[in-house]
C-alpha cells in the first residue's frame, strides 16, 4: 500500500528548474572556479598565506642580494664581453633540497559521496631549498610549508 502511494507520488510531473536558474548557477560556479584557479606556483589552499609570505621574503632577499652586487637589471647589448659585466654572472646552484619536517596523520574512514569508503591522510611537511654561490659566499634559503589531504580508498570486506 505504502509503495503504491510512493510510486503514485513519484510519477507526478514536477515543476522543473528554469533554464535561467541553471545558467545563473553555472555562471556563479564558473566565476568562483576562475577566482580560485591555481596560479603557476601553487600552494595548498589552507597554507597559501604562509607560503606566499615565505616566497615573498625569498624574493625580497634575492632582490637585496642582486642590488648589493650592483648588477645591471637589463640585458647587456649584444656583443658585450661577459667578462666586462661587473662581477660576472651569478651562478646559483641548488646544493641541497631536503625535507625538514614531515608528518602523516590518518583520519577515520568515511564515505565519499559515491558511498565508497575512503580514509583521509593528512600530510604536513616543510620543504627547504637552499641556493649557494660559493664565489661570493651567498646563500638563499626558501622554506615552503605544505598541508595536503590525500584520500585513500579503503577495502571493507
Amino acid at each position: 500500500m505504502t509503495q503504491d502511494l510512493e510510486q503514485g507520488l513519484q510519477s507526478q510531473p514536477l515543476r522543473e528548474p528554469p533554464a535561467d536558474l541553471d545558467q545563473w548557477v553555472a555562471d556563479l560556479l564558473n566565476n568562483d572556479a576562475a577566482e580560485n584557479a591555481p596560479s603557476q606556483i601553487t600552494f595548498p589552499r589552507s597554507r597559501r598565506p604562509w607560503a606566499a609570505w615565505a616566497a615573498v621574503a625569498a624574493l625580497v632577499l634575492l632582490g637585496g642580494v642582486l642590488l648589493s652586487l650592483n648588477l645591471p637589471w637589463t640585458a647587456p647589448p649584444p656583443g658585450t664581453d661577459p667578462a666586462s659585466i661587473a662581477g660576472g654572472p651569478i651562478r646559483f646552484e641548488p646544493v641541497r633540497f631536503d625535507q625538514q619536517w614531515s608528518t602523516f596523520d590518518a583520519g577515520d574512514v568515511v564515505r565519499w559521496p559515491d558511498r565508497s569508503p575512503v580514509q583521509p591522510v593528512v600530510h604536513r611537511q616543510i620543504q627547504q631549498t637552499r641556493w649557494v654561490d660559493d664565489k661570493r659566499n651567498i646563500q638563499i634559503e626558501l622554506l615552503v610549508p605544505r598541508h595536503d589531504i590525500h584520500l585513500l580508498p579503503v577495502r571493507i570486506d
Partner: protein
Amino acid sequence: MLARIYRDHRQGLYSLALAVTRHTQMAEDAVHDAFTRLCRVELSPDRDPVPYVFKAVRNAALDQIRRRQRASQRGDSLFDTSALPDPGTLDTHRAVETAERDALVREAVDRLPDDERELITMKLYAGLTFRQIAESLAQPLATVASRYRRTLTKLRSDMESLV
C-alpha cells in the same frame, strides 16, 4: 564539487525550495542565494556534502519567506501540469480515473503543512536517504523516518477525504 552536486540534484534542490516557498520566483532566488553562500565555504571532505547543500537551500528558502513576507501570494504548486492532457480529451474511463486520482495526489501534497511537504519532497523527489534528510534537517534519524510514515498515512487519508 558544487557543480557536480547541482548537476545531480538540481531538480531535488529546486523542488525543495519550491516546497518551502510555494513561489517559483522565491524558489529560484533561494537556490541562487544558497549557491552564492556555498561558494564562500569550503565543504568538508570527510562528510557527505549533499545534506549540507540541501540544508543551505532550505535555509535560503526560509530566508526568502521571512524577507519578502509574501505569504498571501505563496500558492504555486510543486507540480507542472501544463503538459498533462485535459481530462475531457481522454478517451477511456480508466484514463480519466487515473488522471483524476493523480490530480488528487498533487492536491493532497500541495495542501500538506510545510514541514511535511518538505519531507516528502526530500525523500521522493530529491531521492535523499533518511540519513541525509536527518542530517539536513538536524533531526534524529528515527524521528525523520517515523514522520515520513505518518505523512504518507496522512496523505492517504487526505486523498480519501478529497474524493
